[in-house]
């Protein structure tokens, strides 16, 4: 009997993450939406823990819950300086809702007809040390994508600084 995921913990975390996403969409205040996003990201990190992906849970907390939310709040602080600017109408869109519903039902049909190759969860998973060994293995490892990722981050950093610097004159 393979290990499976605890349904109660999954239900709580799924409710928290969907609730966070709905909170982002239903917040009038942009700052509140940022905090709802933070809550959804923490809930997804908990889901990663349920899936025994401890490293990814940590990265999720650091990158999304830490960096991205703080960056969003900084931009809100810099651009929407008065309180009235940050509070805005909800922007309901019927065509957007129809698009999202169609997309969601299409994905649902895909999942319902998708035969996942392994139905039973393997009981043992490699730990973080094994993850690092596979990442940097010389044959069949992920060294080249890793280097490209660092290049992407460098280019993004330079580009962000370039775009956000003050114009001369």
């Amino acid at each position, binding site marked *: 009997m393979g290990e*499976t*995921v*605890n*349904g*109660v913990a*999954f239900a709580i975390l*799924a409710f928290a993450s*969907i609730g966070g996403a*709905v909170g*982002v*969409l239903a917040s009038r205040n*942009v700052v509140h*939406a940022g905090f709802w*996003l933070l809550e*959804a990201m923490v809930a*997804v990190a908990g*889901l990663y823990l349920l*899936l*025994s*992906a401890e*490293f*990814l849970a940590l990265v*999720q907390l650091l990158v*999304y819950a830490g960096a991205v939310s703080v*960056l*969003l709040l*900084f*931009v809100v602080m*810099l651009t*929407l300086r008065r309180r009235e600017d940050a509070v*805005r109408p909800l*922007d*309901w*869109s019927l*065509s957007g*809702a129809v*698009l999202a519903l169609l*997309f*969601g039902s299409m*994905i649902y049909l895909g*999942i319902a007809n*998708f035969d*996942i*190759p392994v*139905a039973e969860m*393997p009981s043992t*998973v490699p730990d973080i040390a094994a*993850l690092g060994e*596979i990442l940097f293995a010389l044959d069949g490892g*992920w060294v080249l*994508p890793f280097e490209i*990722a660092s290049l992407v*981050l460098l280019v*993004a950093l330079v*580009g*962000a600084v370039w*775009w*956000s610097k*003050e*114009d001369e004159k």
Partner: protein
Amino acid sequence: MMQVGPGAFLALAAVLFSLGLYGAVSKKSAVMVLMSLEIMAVAVNLNMVALSRWVTPETMTGQFFSMFTMVVSAAEIGLGLALVLAIYRRSRSIELSTMERLKG
């Protein structure tokens, strides 16, 4: 005790992605659109981690994929917010309707 399989995770990711898609097409503030994009990116990552747990637990392929997706999404949010700042300096507003002259 109630147990869930990979299908539950895939369904949750689909719901999250649909919510993010709705936000990305309906919101009129650039910051809100970026937040919705992040929700969509997280849904995709959740998908890959869940499938990695059940299908390739030994090689953890999905975990590496979502690691690199996180890199791309972090770069995307950094550049997107820098762009929002640049547009704000030019037109003193981050409403998407002020960016219509980008249509050319």
